[in-house]
């Protein structure tokens, strides 16, 4: 069996639920951050940079660098590595500053 953090610590998560990423349903476990859910699904980029539209995902993973910003339920600039996933969350790719062209 492939080793992963769940088996390593013999975790028994209480809940599994679904969220969506750009409309696609993804499985999530209670306590996972948005970044963990996306990584578990093999997604590593969910934002494009403001100037050159380059892909970004987790860099520091501990809430320091603000590289992993993402839009959750319409609210942009959430730190994916810190915000816990909740049932039904609609996660969407954030383009630039996430505020559209104001």
């Amino acid at each position: 069996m492939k080793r992963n953090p769940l088996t390593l610590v013999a975790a028994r998560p209480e809940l599994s639920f679904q969220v969506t990423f750009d409309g696609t349903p993804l499985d999530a476990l209670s306590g996972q951050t948005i970044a963990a859910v996306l990584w578990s699904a093999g997604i590593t980029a969910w934002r494009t940079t403001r100037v050159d539209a380059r892909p970004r995902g987790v860099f520091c993973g501990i809430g320091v660098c603000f590289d992993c910003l993402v839009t959750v339920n319409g609210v942009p600039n959430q730190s994916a590595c810190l915000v816990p996933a909740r049932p039904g969350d609609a996660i969407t790719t954030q383009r630039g500053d996430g505020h559209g062209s104001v």
Partner: protein
Amino acid sequence: MVIGAGMTGAACAWYAARAGLRVAVLDRGAVAGGTTGAGEGNLLVSDKEPGPELDLALLSTRLWREIAEDAEFGSQLEYEAKGGLVVAAKPEGLAALEALATEQRRSGVVAESVPENALSELEPQIARGLAGGVYYPQDAQVQPARAAALLIRDARRRGATLHTGTTVTALTRDASGAVTGVVTDRGTVRASWVLNAAGTWGGDVAQLAGAHLPVMPRRGFVLVTEPLPRLIRHKVYAADYVANVASGSAALQSSAVIEGTAAGPVLIGASRERVGFDRTFSLEVARLLARRAIELFPALAQVKAMRSYLGFRPYLPDHLPAIGPDPRAPGLLHACGHEGAGIGLAPATGHLITQILTGKSPDLDLTPFRPERFETGSPA
């Protein structure tokens, strides 16, 4: 020998290297690792009352423009001549602001009065119902850590050496008491001149020569918002900021100082308090900064503050830097204590220090900045 690789040390090293002097820069930490890396990079004339500091700022404004136009640095400095807009909420405040602007104009500052109904032409998102303001087109900004690094890099290209992670532990003196070099944790280095550009820690370096220079840390927080479309065009601040800066009180003072950045986040300052080198986050200060900012830009109420940072301005009791040779220790010069204006004042400081080192007569009278002015019995 320059002690300190912040903005001031970098500018002094750059001007000295350009003048053909052999320069070594030492820092116990990294380039821009202290106050330089914890500021906003403001190059302001607007917040200075007429007098020696304003003269220094006006000289520096010209020199910053020259540096920004130097092809060597190009756009890397992130120099932006964005202009400053100072606003007053009440008619009394506006009257005081206009009186200050009148004085400043006599010293060569460009200051344009902005009636209430014209504020929104400059800043479409600004709160309604303010009394008015004054626009200062000479106010500008650089990215300070980049600016220090670029000047040091160019100084090295001209032969200067850089020694980070090197702590000065003592000064060497000859029989007459003249400073002849520095002792570091990595060896002793001889130097004809030792320049104290240690910023907030400049008092400790002066103490190595037994010289009293009471530089104290004055803490400031900056709130950083999430990245936004261009919401704020200039540096915008409340007129009471000038009084806050000039105050000698140790207690917390705050006034709104707000600006957008090229990268997107809005920077929100400014607080001042003397609490030693305490790096603890203060929710009280963060709340106050946020509240004041929303008063000026109501749209910020919907915006998330992502993080904050803090730094320690090098404060001297008369709010003027120490610039020039120290008669108590021949061979030692000081260029520190610029409080919150060090980025702006750095080129003028480097230029004047280099004039001294090369035996020229300085462009400005340095008497108000003389480092020994805080000795007991010395007239202030």
